[in-house]
């Protein structure tokens, strides 16, 4: 019997996603973001986390979801990446739940490819499905297509 893992759920455009709690450093609201021109893709910009500079990745854009309506709340989930902290911007943060490791299944083939490659599993709950984020892939922005018209 595998150990149950603690995951924290978050909302993105009506869907429920989750991250292992162990990967989360903190949750911050209301950060001022400095955009990084030319970075394109899902990079919202840079934020100041008490003197440390972190890249902010908008998960809506990362999943090719419609942009967040202006005025709608956003929350930053800070995770530790290899090179330092990275902020994942989501719509809202939900609960911390315990799930048995063997209840996590492979993501179904029917998931949209843009979503499927960033999800490492799916977990059935009474109130619906929870998609488990593959954090390292989600923040690997280098994998994003480079700007089509950038000069060599």
């Amino acid at each position, binding site marked *: 019997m595998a150990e149950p893992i603690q995951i924290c759920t978050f909302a993105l455009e009506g869907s429920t996603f989750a991250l292992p709690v162990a990967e989360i450093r903190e949750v911050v609201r209301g950060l001022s973001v400095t955009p990084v021109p*030319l970075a394109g893709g899902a*990079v919202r910009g840079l934020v*100041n986390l008490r003197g440390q*500079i972190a890249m902010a990745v908008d998960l809506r854009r990362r999943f090719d979801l419609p942009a967040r309506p202006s005025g709608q709340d956003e929350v930053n989930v800070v995770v530790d990446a290899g*090179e330092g902290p990275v902020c994942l911007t989501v719509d809202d943060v939900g609960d911390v739940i315990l799930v048995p490791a063997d209840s996590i299944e492979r993501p179904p083939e029917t998931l949209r490819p843009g979503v499927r490659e960033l999800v490492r599993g799916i977990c059935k709950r009474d109130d619906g499905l929870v998609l488990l984020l593959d954090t390292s892939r989600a923040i690997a922005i280098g994998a994003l297509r480079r700007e089509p018209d950038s000069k060599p």
Partner: protein
Amino acid sequence: MADEILEEFMAELGELLSTLERDLISVDGGRDPSEVVAQTFRVFHTVKGTAGFLGFDRLRELSHAAEDLLDSIRDGEVAWTRPVTDTLLQVLDALRVIMETISRTGGDGAEAYAGLVGRLREAAASMGQESPVVEPPPSAPVPVAPAAAAAPPPPGPPPQAVFQPLRAAPKLVRPPAPGSSPPSQTPAVPPPTAAPSTAPAATPPLPSAARPEPGHAPDAGDGGSLRVPVAVLDRLMNLVGELVLARNQLLCHEAAREDTRLGETSQRIDHLTAGLQESVMKARMQPIDNAFTRLPRVCRDAAQATAKRVRLVTSGAETELDKTLLEAIRDPLVHLVRNAVDHGVERPEQRVAAGKPEEGTVAVSAFQDGGQVVVEVQDDGGGVNLEKVRQKAVSSGLVTAEEAARLSERDTLDLVFRPGFSTAETVTQISGRGVGMDVVRTNVERIGGSVEMVSRAGRGSVCRVRVPLTLVIVPALIVESGDERYAVPQANLSELVRVPPEREARLLAVVQGTSVLRLRGAILPLVDLGAELRTGAARRAADGSRSVVVLNAQGRQFGLLVDEVGDTEEIVVKPLGAQLQQLGVYSGATVRGDGRVALVLDVHGLARRAGVLEDAERPPAPADAADLATGLSRRSYLLLRGADDGRLAIPLGEVLRLEEVEPARIEPTGAGEAIQYRGRILPLVRLSSALVERRRAPRAPAGAPPQRVHVVVQAVGGRDVGLVVDSVLDVVEEAVMLDASRARPGVVGCAVIQGRITEVLDTAALLSAGMEAPREAALG
């Protein structure tokens, strides 16, 4: 404990080997071997002792054999010849390999270097039979004991066993002469035949007297310095970086409040932070000499491999540089020297035919220029054959023949730094494999530096490497574009140009679809920052004027059009993640006083992206080749009119900004004069009172006071101070020969600029003297 000894031993050995290498080569250069022998002997002796103690037998044996050879040389039995240098250099190489093996595996490897040891023994014994030397008495080994006492008893073999070979060894090589006194006799006077001229008869047995006690590090007596792990310095630097940020934030909050006590405290913290920052940065500074140590060897090897005769001269070795940066330019320098010997200096017969001395010279010089350190590697060879470079570039597919024909000299030389380029007709073992110069450029640019090449046919070429003094905290200009602020490192900045609407048509133009800036007759490419970053074209200021920041990239100037020019600040540059770094436009990011993040522009990357590096047709400084002959580099000067219509010049390298102010804005304060400047108080020093004129007293204002005066803003001791000057004539870029014999307080010397004798001012000295005087008066 043993680990600590090992660690210290390895660190020390690394340093010893570098100095040793240089000493050995200096003998080839004509230095008296006897000066070098003692030191070299001592090093090998120490290595041997410690290696024995730590159980590294191969290391011990090798240094032992080298020690014996040196012993024979010291005793005059063997002469120091070139093959001796060669063999000893090979020993150094072998020691490096062993060191590397030790740090990798913990053991000193299986390679016994039997051949090398054999050669050493052979060399040492070559004359040993003929001129024997009396062995020191057996009591002599006693000095060895303290080392054993100082260190804990080794776990393995008993101390006796470890140290036994130290003394026993020489006997194996040099058996005592049959007729000499028995070893037990105490003050053994060597028989006259064996007594080398270097050993005075009055001295007790030379070998043991000159032999130092092992375990005493050469620098042990130096009580004034301390070895500090680099990690501690890095941590200190990071903390100071954070402190600078917090200080900036404090000043920001303080400006918003009217609280004099808070103001005083924050001013004090401001000063303390600046002082602390300077001290910590100084602690990380090392003389560039540390990067020069390998060069004589590199030059010698390269010369030998190509059958050339080359002399290496270095100057400015005391120039200091941040340790990280020093490490980063170590390899590029090696490559440049190797390249200068291999491609620059001609073969002896060609040199003689060209009327040059047979021996070529490679000169490596370092000096500080503003916030940068410049290192030049210059050779007196045949210069770069531009035609050959073009052909080669075409044949390697770097450019088309058509493009090659249109390349300017500067652009052609730039091809040398492209990946996959090589001009050597034959691929030698040391260079010419098409890797190297591009790696040099990449490595230098990675640390915010630049490299360029200047060549003159028949006269030689110069590679000029510019690197910042320090990496972490740099002065930067804040510019605004779109709704964001960006930091531009001061090192890349040459001047700021404000273009009022009425002069816009004259100064800014579009030539063949390219925007340009007309600046004192030169035409510079103009890049719109907002357009380049796709955040929208640059906007005008409220009064309709436009702001251009003139930047330097790879020795080439271009204008950057921004919305607004802000303050100069000390910023703490933090690295970006690899994903953002690879955009090539930003070199880092920084947290500003208001807590927001600002991106630091990578000026080279920006220039490359905008295409101004490749496209600029005309080099801005056409006189480069002429400068090369005199070995001078071009600098910018602000020309002023002094007393009696004399000329004064201020080197612009250290100037942060040049401002024009109305005299009425200058306010008297308790400690002199000051103006309100960008929300802060800028203390002022008047040039007319700081510089004591030789011919007459500070001149009285002639006629009406000037409408506007110029303020030269410069950082002195970590804070900005303004120098008030009232008659600016021009800004010129010239290579000048400074006559330092004409120096006087506040003046570094005289030079001819624009055909007139001009006194070059030492603004830092003038400003600090000017700041001291009123402060002392206020205190006293």
